[in-house]
């Protein structure tokens, strides 16, 4: 069962100290909602956990694996503000590339099923430039549906989604954590997720 440990993490941007001495331990099945005002460092904390940014001080471990290790990278899935979709490619092409980048090359049927589950059935061959912001977000979330990573780091996952989409993401997070995963997410919206812990920056 995975355990994510943050020990005395500090983050500085320029001359601004965003946060310091953040220590957390998350165990299998935990859902952590990170809250805070704009600029408080929510995204920076997720980026540090994803290995995109370096922390000023402190350590991060997933079980015994350090944040820069390959095992850690394989075990973590990060979904940022941006949907990571190329405008010229179709939904299925984008999804195929994203899943290959994050884990392994998947069968097309699995990708089609994932798109169906996020409410984009029939959009497989649609060019992403023609999709709305919410639909683009759903394509990105389809890669979440396919993810086998133990730890999910989701930055504003409900942005641009309708209430049905929000519910879909919440049930996706709950299913992941019921299966023993860990999820950390930031949001400014209300969330009805059960058993969520809240961490304020």
């Amino acid at each position: 069962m995975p355990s994510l440990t943050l020990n005395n993490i500090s983050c500085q941007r320029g001359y601004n100290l965003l946060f310091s001495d953040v220590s957390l331990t998350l165990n299998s099945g935990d859902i952590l909602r990170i809250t805070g005002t704009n600029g408080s460092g929510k995204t920076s904390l997720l980026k540090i956990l994803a290995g995109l940014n370096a922390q000023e001080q402190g350590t991060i471990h997933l079980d015994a694996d350090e944040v820069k290790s390959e095992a850690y990278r394989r075990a973590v899935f990060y979904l940022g503000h941006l949907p990571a979709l190329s405008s010229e490619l179709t939904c299925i092409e984008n999804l195929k590339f994203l899943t290959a980048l994050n884990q392994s090359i998947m069968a097309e049927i699995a990708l089609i099923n994932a798109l169906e589950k996020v409410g984009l059935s029939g959009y497989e061959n649609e060019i992403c430039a023609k999709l709305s912001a919410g639909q683009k977000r759903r394509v990105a979330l389809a890669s979440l549906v396919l993810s086998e990573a133990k730890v999910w780091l989701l930055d504003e996952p409900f942005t641009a989604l309708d209430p049905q989409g929000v519910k879909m993401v919440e049930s996706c997070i709950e299913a992941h954590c019921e299966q023993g995963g860990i999820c950390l997410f930031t949001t400014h919206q209300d969330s009805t997720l059960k058993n969520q812990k809240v961490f304020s920056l």
Partner: protein
Amino acid sequence: MFIHHTPRFYFEKSEGIFIMNIYLQTLMRDIRSALRNLSSVMNPLLFFIISISLFPLAISPESATLSQIAAGIIWVASMLAVLLSLNTLFHDDFDNGVLEQMVISHHSLPLLILSKIVAHWLLTGVPIILLSPLLGTLLFLDSESVKVLMLTLLIATPSLSLIGAMGASLIVSIKNSGMLLSLLILPLYIPILIFASSAVSQAQAGLEIDAQLYFLSAILVMSLMVAPFISALSLKISLE
């Protein structure tokens, strides 16, 4: 209600499915994106053709004059065309968040970048090599010199893409950075320009060109060894 999905993977070769690894997928993805946005591919090539075809009008239509400066003209135009195309190498993926995913992926970032550079060369360098005989003939280059010109382009255009990628990765987070890119990259292109145009001039004079080709090959090997790693490091810094 959402049901958590357990994905199935393509591992069986027995089904006759060709399994592309992630690096080949990155290359194909970039080529596919570029071909669907043809202006990004055509603009540098049109610049290459138009700028070269204007020289006979501006300087002289005489074959003796043009053949003497043909190699230099074609090489300068090639360099500027590649420079023009470098802006799109990382910018789109930076803006849409794909670079973030590449950086945090467990795959080798330098190899992912190398795949992008190969795609860039296939879309820019290869068309320039293929167009060069036509434009060489337009500037009255003899057939032997055209062969040497193509050979120098074949050896050196990959270096242009590799060196260019280092500059493009450094300034990926800066908007409207075309001028800065030129300032960063052009000095590094100068040795390539000197050796490549010198090789064609030597061939026109019937002299040996081995030394120039060795230098161009050495630059290619050096940039191949260094550029993907420097670009990877620059991208990581740009994304922080």
